[in-house]
C-alpha cells in the first residue's frame, strides 16, 4: 500500500531519468531533508550536535568515498584514514598560507591533493588485486601517517606536532575554531555533505559509474569490451580519495578542532570500512545508515548503565563497548551480509503489499 507505484506514469524521458522516479521515495527524501535542515537543528542540544549529528554526517561522507572505491569499483582499500589526513593537512596548509582564503574553497581544493596521493597509491591496483591490493593500500596508511609526524612543515613546525584549527569566518560567520557555534558548523557540514552526495549519486548512476561496476564485477571481461582499466581504476581511486580528503578536512576543521597524526591511524580506516560494509557496499544511502549505527551505538551503550542505575566505571564500560561493537559487526554480517541498505530494500518490498498478505 505505502509503496505502491501503480498509477505513476512518466510522460517524458526526463521524468523517467529523475533521481527518484518513485513518488514515495521523493516524499521520503523531502521528509529527511526537512528533518535535517529544520527539526534536528532546532531541537538538538550541544551534546547531540557534537556527539551525534556532525560526526554521523562526516563519517557518512568518508564512508561514501570508500564505498565508491570498494563498493562501486571493487578495489578494497584500507588506507582511507590516511587519505582523510591528506585532506586535513592540505586544508591546514592552505588556510595558514592564505589566511584570506574562503574555508569552503580551501576544503574543496584540499580534496585535489588527496586525490593525487590516492591515485599514486592506486597505481599498484593495475597489477594486483584483492587482499594483495588491500595490503598495498596499508602502505599508504603507514607511510602517510609517518610522514604527518616527521615532516614538520606540514604542521608549521609546532612544538606539539599537532595542528590546531584557528578561528575562521565564512562570510562573516564564525564556522571553525574554538569559538564557533555547533549549529553553524552543523549547517556547514550538512551543506558540503549534501553537495558531495548529490555529485556521487549522479556520478555512480552515469557512464562512469557503469564502467566502475563493470570493472568490479569482472575486470578482464570489462577490458575485453573496451573499458580502459587503468583510467577506470585510477579515476576511482582519485574520486574516492577526493571525497575522503574533503571528509578529513571537515573531520578536523568542523568537528575535532585539532588533530594529531595518530588520529588518522588504522582504527579510523577500519571504522570507516565497517560503516561502508554494514551500510551496504555499492549503495549511497547505506553509508548514512551505517554511520548512524556505528556512531550512535557507543553513545547509546554509554547511557544504558546510568538508566539502569548500575555503576560500572568508565574503563570497563569502554571495554564492554568495544566488545559489543565487535559482536554486533559479526551479528550484522551474519544476518544481512549485504548491509543495512539491503535491509531497507526488503522493508520497502514488504511495504508495497502491506497490509495485505499478497
Amino acid at each position: 500500500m505505502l509503496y505502491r507505484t501503480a498509477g505513476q506514469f512518466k510522460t517524458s524521458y526526463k521524468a523517467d531519468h529523475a533521481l527518484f522516479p518513485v513518488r514515495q521515495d521523493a516524499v521520503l527524501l523531502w521528509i529527511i531533508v526537512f528533518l535535517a535542515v529544520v527539526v534536528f537543528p532546532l531541537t538538538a542540544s550541544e551534546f547531540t550536535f557534537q556527539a551525534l549529528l556532525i560526526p554521523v554526517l562526516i563519517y557518512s561522507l568518508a564512508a561514501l568515498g570508500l564505498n565508491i572505491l570498494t563498493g562501486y569499483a571493487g578495489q578494497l582499500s584500507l588506507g582511507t584514514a590516511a587519505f582523510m589526513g591528506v585532506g586535513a593537512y592540505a586544508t591546514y596548509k592552505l588556510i595558514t598560507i592564505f589566511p584570506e582564503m574562503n574555508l569552503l574553497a580551501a576544503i574543496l581544493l584540499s580534496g585535489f591533493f588527496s586525490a593525487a596521493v590516492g591515485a599514486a597509491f592506486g597505481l599498484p591496483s593495475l597489477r594486483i588485486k584483492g587482499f594483495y591490493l588491500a595490503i598495498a593500500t596499508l602502505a599508504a596508511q603507514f607511510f602517510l601517517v609517518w610522514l604527518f609526524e616527521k615532516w614538520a612543515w606540514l604542521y608549521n613546525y609546532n612544538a606539539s606536532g599537532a595542528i590546531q584549527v584557528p578561528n575562521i569566518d565564512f562570510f562573516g560567520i564564525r564556522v571553525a575554531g574554538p569559538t564557533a557555534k555547533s549549529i553553524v558548523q552543523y549547517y556547514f557540514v550538512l551543506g558540503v555533505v549534501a553537495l558531495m552526495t548529490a555529485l556521487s549519486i549522479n556520478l555512480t548512476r552515469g557512464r562512469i559509474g557503469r564502467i566502475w561496476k563493470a570493472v568490479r564485477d569482472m575486470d578482464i571481461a570489462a577490458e575485453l569490451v573496451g573499458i580502459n582499466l587503468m583510467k577506470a581504476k585510477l579515476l576511482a581511486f582519485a574520486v574516492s580519495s577526493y571525497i575522503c580528503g574533503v571528509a578529513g578536512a571537515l573531520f578536523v576543521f568542523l568537528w575535532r578542532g585539532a588533530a594529531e597524526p595518530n588520529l588518522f591511524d588504522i582504527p579510523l580506516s577500519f571504522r570507516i570500512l565497517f560503516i561502508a560494509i554494514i551500510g551496504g557496499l555499492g549503495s549511497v544511502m547505506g553509508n548514512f545508515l551505517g554511520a548512524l549505527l556505528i556512531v550512535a551505538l557507543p553513545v547509546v551503550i554509554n547511557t544504558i548503565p546510568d538508566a539502569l542505575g548500575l555503576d560500572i566505571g568508565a574503563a570497563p564500560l569502554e571495554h564492554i563497548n568495544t566488545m559489543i561493537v565487535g559482536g554486533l559487526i559479526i551479528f550484522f554480517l551474519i544476518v544481512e551480509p549485504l548491509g543495512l541498505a539491503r535491509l531497507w530494500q526488503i522493508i520497502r518490498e514488504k511495504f508495497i503489499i502491506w497490509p495485505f498478505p499478497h
Partner: protein
Amino acid sequence: MLNQIFVKPFVDMVSAPDFLLQVVWEGLVSGVLYALIALGFVLIYKSSRIFNFAQGIMVVFAALTLVGLHENGVPALLALPLTLVVMYLLAMAIERVVLRPLVNQPDIILFMATIGITLFLVGFGELIFGGENKVMITEQLGIPTGSYTFEPWGGLLILEQKDITAVIGAIVLVLALLLFLNRSKMGRAIRALGDDHQAALSVGISLSTIWVLVWFIAGIIALATGIVWGARAGVSFALEVIAYKALPVLMLGGLESVSGAIIGGLMIGILEKLFEIYWGQPLMGGNTETWFAFVLALFVLLFRPQGLFGERIIERV
C-alpha cells in the same frame, strides 16, 4: 646527499662489521617472529580462504591468558597446557559462532568478520586482564635469559639466549608444522580443502573439524609468538601492532605459501632493520620500520603480482 644515500651507509657497514652482524641478528630475530605470525595467516588462508585479521589479537590473547593464569597461582608449566585449552575453546567458538553461519560469503565479508572478532577480543581481553603492560613469565617457563658475547674482528656481538631459544623454537615449530601438513592425514585434508572446497567435501572431509583444527594450530602459533615477543617487549595490547608487520610478509611471500611466509619474514626482518639503522635514522628521522616493509613489498609486487612464492594467478573470463 647522494654520498649520504649511496656511499656512506656501505662504508659504515664495512668499517664496523661487528655492528652490522648485530643489526642483522636483531633483524633476523624479529624476522622469525614476523614469519611466525605470517604462518598463522597462511594456514588459515590456505584452508578456508579467510584473511584472518584476528591473528594479531590472538597472539595478545594467548600471551595474556598465559600470564594471567600464572598471576592467579597456576604453575607456569601447568598454565601452558591450560592456555592451549583456552585457545582450542576459542577456535571452537569462532568456528561455531562466526564461521559456520558465514560459509560461502564473499571474501570481504569474512575478512570483516575477523575484524569483528579482533574488536571483540580486544574488549574481552582488556575487561578480564586489564589494559596495563605485563611481564612475560620467561624464567618460570625455563627459558634462559643470559647472553653470549662474541668478539669478531675485535668488535662486540651480543646474542641474547632468549633470542636464540626463540629462533630454535620457531625452527622446531615450523618443521613440525611442515611435517604435519605434508605427512599426516589431517594435514593432507587441510591442503585438500585449500585446493578445492567442494571436491574436498565430496570425498568426505569434514569442513568444521578442519576449520577448528586450523584455527587451533593458528592459536598454538599465536601462543608461541606471544611468548617470544612478550619476553622481548612485555605483554600488552601494543603487541597487536606486530600483526600488521606480518602483512607485507604475506604480500612478499604469497598468501598460500608456507615457505614464502618464512623466507619473506626473515627477509623483511633483516632488510627493515638495515634500512632503519643505516638510512632511516641518519637521513629520515627514524621510525621507518612502520612503513618500510610495506613499501618494499609494494615494489616487489609491481614486478611479481603473486608475490615471490605465491601460486601463479591464471585468470579466466
